[in-house]
């Protein structure tokens, strides 16, 4: 019984640590993917001028997985299935802060609303801010992401040693 409780405590510590690690990891990957999407849009809008829906649907599948469902939410809006608001867009993006969500929503609201030149400038301005978000999320990941994993492992081992 004792060993079972020790094992459970150890696993709980690891899960808590992994949850924090995962949060920072998701944020880091999200901003990287978002910047890649913005860059892809800039290139395609300037050259192929393909429709927004097609561009987002054809965006790299692996990278798209890190967008926390905002691409799906936006496509639903383009298809008139949902409204363009934070409730619909950020359903799966609970790791984002309010300020970040507001800014991303603003970005989505400007997409497809102007000519090539203005659209390109707008995306470039948004990308600058996304890079700032990314820099912060990278730092947080380095600072707290790996740290929380290590701490959870240490805490788990601590319980194991103390309880044995």
């Amino acid at each position, binding site marked *: 019984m004792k060993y079972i409780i020790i094992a459970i405590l150890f696993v709980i510590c690891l899960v808590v640590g992994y949850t924090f690690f995962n949060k920072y990891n998701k944020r880091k990957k999200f901003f990287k993917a978002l910047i890649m999407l913005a860059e892809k849009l800039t290139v395609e809008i300037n050259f192929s001028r393909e429709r927004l829906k097609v561009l987002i649907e054809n965006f790299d599948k692996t990278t798209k997985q890190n967008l926390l469902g905002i691409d799906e939410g936006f496509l639903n809006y383009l298809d008139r299935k949902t409204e363009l608001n934070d409730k619909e867009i950020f359903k799966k993006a609970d790791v984002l802060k309010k300020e970040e969500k507001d800014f991303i929503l603003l970005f989505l609201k400007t997409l497809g609303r102007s000519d*090539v030149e203005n659209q390109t400038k707008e995306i470039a301005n948004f990308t600058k801010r996304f890079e700032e978000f990314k820099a912060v999320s990278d730092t947080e990941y380095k600072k707290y992401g790996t740290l929380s994993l290590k701490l959870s492992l240490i805490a788990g081992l601590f319980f194991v040693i103390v309880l044995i």
Partner: protein
Amino acid sequence: MLSKILPEKIAHIVGSKINLKSVNEIRFRADKPIIVAVGGKNYFLSENGLTSSLKDALYSSKIVIEDIIFRASECSIYSVNEQIKKGYIVTENGLRIGIGGNVVEENGQVKTMTNFNSVNIRIPHAIKNCSLSYFPYIVHDNTIENTLVISPPGCGKTTFLRDFVAQLSERNLTYNVLLLDERGELDTELDANFFDKIAFSSKKMGFENGIRSLSPDLIVTDEVGQEEDVDAILYASTCGVKILASTHADNMETFIKKALFQKLIKEKVFKRYVLLSKRNGPGTNEGIYNENFSRLSSSF
């Protein structure tokens, strides 16, 4: 098709309370009542369909107009900027949407249009046999006469061109027809077999490339209105290609006085002139004339 671009509430009214087959245009102007043109007459749009009473009219707003343009461009205004520069968008279903707003110019060239304040959605209709009464005057002895269809806006020029191409196909007259379609609307609901299409190209480019690459017997094109269009037609006529085109003018007298067409009139490039009006609704036949502007039939 309108449900994709209109605001939900308006789309519902238009879809359920109006017979779209009789609608020619729907106009949205910022902070003004929504107007629906039916059979050449204007009505207001209300919750219950069409009305003549202003107090029941539904009003449009700038946001509604911007949203219609956004949706009509498939949520990608940048992709249709070349059309917007010319003042319209054509949707994937062939709806032509005229746009009013502020034109942004740079170095004498239109760069784009902003601050949209009105849209005019033109509903295309295929009116079967609308060109039939003119057909024998234009096609005879296995040849087609170069023909120019003349009318004010909204009188059925494009519908006439479409039906004429369909009539050729129906009679198995296997002419290779090239639709030179600057606005991408000529083949909307077109039931014909023998046509190629060059869309969204200038007439100059379209005539040159089309003649070179597609060897058409007949080029059908809409709204001749510039010097370079006239030059393109002159070029085609010297290549042995027949032309069916349209242009804007109130009546034959106005047309004959237009400076733009003097070269074509002098050279007698067009052998037939078809005049349309909306006197008895869009597409009213007003007569067909030969190259000397003598009326060929009084039966219209």
